[in-house]
């Protein structure tokens, strides 16, 4: 602190205000008398239920697919791997709407895979599966990134020690590697869950907005914003609480 010039307090305070003020303004607008009724209306409940269900499924998919990816990226070297890492990170900076378009041209009726699935009678676009795919697509890099970092930090010395004590690779993975990075795995899962829960652009583009099937909370809030602003604010407040909880959780993990 002593080495910082004082004038930086002004822009820093402005930046903090830009973040904190909107959250406070929204919290002030919640109609507390109707709050319970608003978030338990039929359409709100349907969106809540769908969001919870799809986000949990997506988080599980991220763990299933992302843990092996992170392991390979962290434990394999070579020029090829850095290209793979770059590819895996793309959904992190790709506009979600573009991700939605890309998914549409893959799993949509006319899509690369979709047209073959159509023949088999399977239709993915505009279904709950599409929501899960869209959420997994955008959330996967969060899990891979935080786990890969933790795996690199942990290094291979425990794994080499385990092998030197006679443990087979599968046993090393389940009894040494994963327990060691458990905090990062948990916070990565929480982050990917949060990213899935907030997904909007890719979902609305690839899955549309059918109540009970693809209309998740962010879509419900977007649609209610003009027709029923009180409901939109109440649901926004709920998602804000989730965001705060996620930050608190991920933060506690990091400092632990």
């Amino acid at each position, binding site marked *: 602190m002593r080495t910082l010039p004082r004038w930086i307090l002004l822009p820093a305070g402005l930046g903090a205000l830009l973040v904190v003020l909107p959250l406070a303004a929204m919290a002030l607008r919640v109609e507390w008398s109707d709050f319970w009724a608003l978030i338990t209306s039929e359409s709100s409940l349907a969106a809540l239920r769908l969001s919870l269900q799809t986000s949990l499924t997506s988080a599980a998919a991220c763990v299933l697919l992302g843990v092996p990816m992170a392991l390979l990226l962290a434990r394999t070297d070579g020029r090829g791997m850095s290209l793979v890492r770059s590819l895996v990170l793309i959904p992190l900076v790709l506009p979600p709407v573009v991700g939605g378009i890309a998914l549409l041209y893959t799993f949509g009726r006319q899509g690369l895979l979709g047209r073959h699935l159509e023949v088999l009678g399977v239709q993915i676009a505009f279904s709950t599966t599409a929501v899960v795919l869209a959420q997994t697509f955008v959330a996967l890099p969060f899990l891979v990134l935080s786990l890969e970092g933790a795996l690199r930090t942990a290094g291979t010395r425990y794994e080499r020690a385990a092998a030197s*004590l006679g443990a*087979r690779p599968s046993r*090393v993975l389940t*009894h040494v590697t994963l327990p060691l990075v*458990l905090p990062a795995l948990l916070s990565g899962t929480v982050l990917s869950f949060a990213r899935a829960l907030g997904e909007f652009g890719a979902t609305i583009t690839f899955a549309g907005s059918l109540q009970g099937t693809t209309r998740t909370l962010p879509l419900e809030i977007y649609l209610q914003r003009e027709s029923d602003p009180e409901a939109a604010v109440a649901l926004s407040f709920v998602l804000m609480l989730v965001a705060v909880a996620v930050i608190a959780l991920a933060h506690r993990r990091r400092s632990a």
Partner: protein
Amino acid sequence: MSLVLRAAVAERHVELDLEVGHGETLALVGPNGAGKSTALSLISGDLRPSSGSVSLDGRILADEGTWVPPHDRRVTTLSQDPVLFPHLSALGNVVFPLRAQGVPRGDARRRALEHLDALGLAGLAARRPAQLSGGQAQRVAIARALAADPRLLLLDEPMAALDVDVAPALREQLRGFLAGRTAIVVTHDVLDALSLAERVVVLEQGRQVDAGPTTEVLARPRSAFAARLAGLNLVAGRWDGHRIELEGGGRLSAKSPLVPGTAVLAAFRPAAVRLAEQGLPRTVHSLTPHGDLVRVRTEDLAADLSPQDAAARHLAPGTVVHLAVAPEDVKTYLA
């Protein structure tokens, strides 16, 4: 023989020919980069030989066509870092190798407790590695390595990270456990080599340059590194009955029963060297604290002086000095 290592690693310019007998402990010493780590990596399975083979108790571990992965070699490494699994208790760490070998849970627990007990650690079984001192952690690591029941134990500077107060007691314990086991200990510490190993092999630049019973190699070193480990200056020359004509030029008086005209090696302690008006002319290369004394290193010889002496003479790299040593302090033996 238990271990037979006859292998080369071309890109590291290392070519090794080592054997360790059943129940024998071999000390492997040498300067950094001499090939000690390469030897251990070849045996543990962290590195493939570019030619040659490694075999243990008659089973080929690695050659051109064979490759046994590390977990299947029955070779366990104990390094200066105990590498205890931080998410397991001390007991859980010692249970780990037993469970990995398929020992049933209850049985593994019982045997792990016995191992901890043998090292005086029974009271610490429930502790996490973070709650153990450095010496306790290293003893848990020893218990864990013994629980793995390896055919060959590799000790890679096992005391190097320990507090000086802890090392001697642990060294004595380790000496007990190594009796009758096949082991290789890599060390920079002359006390480790003397207490733990019956035989020593000296490596320099990827090749074996000296070998034999530990006390013999240290008493009559034949390589620069063995001489340094024993704390001796080593010179080679020809004995003329009164003096040694040194290979690099100059003469050194000595007393020796050897036949005049033979090629000899001569060893003497740096503390026996003094600065004189006449003597072997040398240029100071470096000064380093050495115990209470200051070690003055020249091209080939070292002298230990008091700090007061060194400071009073303003010795610095480049100063020319004349080194002398009393004949009775020079030990001679056949080259």
